[in-house]
């Protein structure tokens, strides 16, 4: 008997992500964010989402600018060398977007607690940080029941849906990761439903040739979408680097709400294959892949 297939199309995400859901978004820095899924969320007009991220960049900025979020949980949102995140800043400084700023460790430990099905996990957390005072819903100072020591309890984080981008999968949904895995695996364990875009779908036989690369089992995956260059303009190493030329374009167009609308029109509100054409097509893809290959070591 053939095994059940988890493979679907980008447009199938609306069967899983609903208005008002809490979604955890994988990747970190300018690396490995599930950007094809992010663009599809915007295209589909999904609204009122609460986004959960550890260290984010254009993924969160784009969702905010497109008006998809009602709340944000984050430890870091920055375009790194390209500057502060323009839509994120505007939404908080001018429009009062509600948010929960949590330390990076508390996001990861909170997701781990969610995955373990416990309401919190203790650690020697950020004593003295104003974040602890600001967000008592996520931090509590507790006494260790064994030693009496003060510890910080990080509240469990339980997303409705986790969305991540990975290297490859088979049709059954076993996920392989060869690059920056961030806190994607904890997100997958903590979430009720999970969507994964991958660079390529391969046979189960091929997955079984390198089981050490497999990081998420099929029963923790609900939808697999083949999306080559699906992390663009962020990276998916070791295959391709982030696209600094597109990042510059984004920063230019995200500078004002009007020009950002134009960005969405030019790059997002069209089928994904047209997006890949708009960012420079095969030529641009080959530059980004080549940069990721041609690295120089000094030993």
């Amino acid at each position, binding site marked *: 008997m053939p095994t059940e297939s988890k493979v679907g199309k980008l447009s199938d995400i609306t069967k899983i992500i609903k208005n008002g859901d809490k979604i955890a978004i994988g990747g*970190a*820095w*300018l*690396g490995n964010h599930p950007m094809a899924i992010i663009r599809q969320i915007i295209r589909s007009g999904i609204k009122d989402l609460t986004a959960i991220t*550890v*260290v984010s960049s254009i993924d969160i900025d784009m969702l905010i600018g497109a008006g998809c979020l009602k709340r944000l949980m984050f*430890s*870091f*949102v*920055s375009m*790194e*060398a390209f500057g*502060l995140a323009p839509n*994120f*800043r505007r939404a*908080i*400084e001018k429009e009062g977007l509600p948010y929960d*700023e949590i*330390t*990076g*460790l508390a996001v*990861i*430990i909170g997701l*781990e607690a969610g995955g373990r099905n416990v309401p919190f996990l203790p*650690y*020697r*957390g*950020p*004593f*003295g*940080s*104003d*974040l602890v005072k*600001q967000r008592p819903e996520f931090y509590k100072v507790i006494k260790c029941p064994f030693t009496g020591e003060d510890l910080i309890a990080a509240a469990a984080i339980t997303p409705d849906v986790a969305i991540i981008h990975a290297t490859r999968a088979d049709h059954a949904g076993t996920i392989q990761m*060869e*690059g*920056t*895995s*961030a*806190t*994607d*695996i*904890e997100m997958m364990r903590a979430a009720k439903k999970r969507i994964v875009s991958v660079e390529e779908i391969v046979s189960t036989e091929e997955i079984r040739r390198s089981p050490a690369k497999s990081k998420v089992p099929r029963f923790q995956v609900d939808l697999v979408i083949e999306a080559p260059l699906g992390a663009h303009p962020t*990276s998916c*190493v*070791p295959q391709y*680097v*982030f696209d*600094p030329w597109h990042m*510059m374009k984004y920063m230019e167009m995200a500078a004002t709400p009007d020009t950002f609308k134009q960005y969405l029109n030019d790059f997002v509100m069209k089928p994904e294959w047209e997006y890949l054409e708009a960012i420079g097509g095969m030529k641009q893809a080959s*530059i980004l892949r*080549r*940069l*990721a290959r*041609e*690295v*120089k*070591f*000094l*030993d």
Partner: protein
Amino acid sequence: MKHYADDYSVGELMCVTLSKEIEDGDVVLLGSFTPLAYASYILAKITHAPNITLLAYAAVDPRPFQLSFTRAEAAATRGAALLWTMLEDLNSVHLKGRGDVEAISSIQADQYGNINLSVVGEYDKPKLRGPGGAGAPEVIKMHRKMIGYFTSHSKMTFVPKVDFITGTRYVIDPEDRIKSGYRPGPIRYITNLAVIAKEKKDKPFKIESVHPGVKVEDVINNTGFELEVPAPVKETEKPTKDEVKLIREQVDPYGTIAFDFKPGKERLGYLKSILQKELESIGYA
């Protein structure tokens, strides 16, 4: 006999000074892409500290790599001895106090060892919403040393009290650190003017050295809190000719370190020139 360089940038001086914070055998974390800090760790790895373990992105113990603007993550990943997740990283390093150095920077830093990466102004109605702290608020407490680097030493950055405490060293005195389960180590800030450090909760930051050509008054006048000024004040050791050559030819041939020192309006043009060189390096003109 060391041959000191006559021609070096303040970025190169800071890079070499930061690299001297790395001791052989250290566990060194790269954090967000910050060219100056990355360059200093790689310089340490290929000079005085070959036995350090670098942690970069998902990569554990990557081969030292040449910096470029786009390729640090790919290089670290391709040269890794092991790839792990953030949870494995914090279980193995952060929570055990096993990290030695992870240089951070901050919008504001104050006399108590607090940093602010969150907001300028009121938390709920900020004048500036910063990026947030990522790992910084906790690594500055957990790792052996708290090392900060600041490319613009001014009263805007070094304030008496930060507007918001995103994170804090929390336990500073060596005996308190040991009691709390952490290894003792200093708070040390390397700036474009000087090196300042604090080792006791009740003592102010002390000027450890001023950079060649910088007056002690310049450091005092650009710091918004009291500094202990020893007499005499030492001069920061200059980079050697070999160190400058290594940075320019091996570690950072594309000039990424200089990026952080460019004024806002020159950054984009400078970035484009680096990217052009990167394209040329892979055969695209």
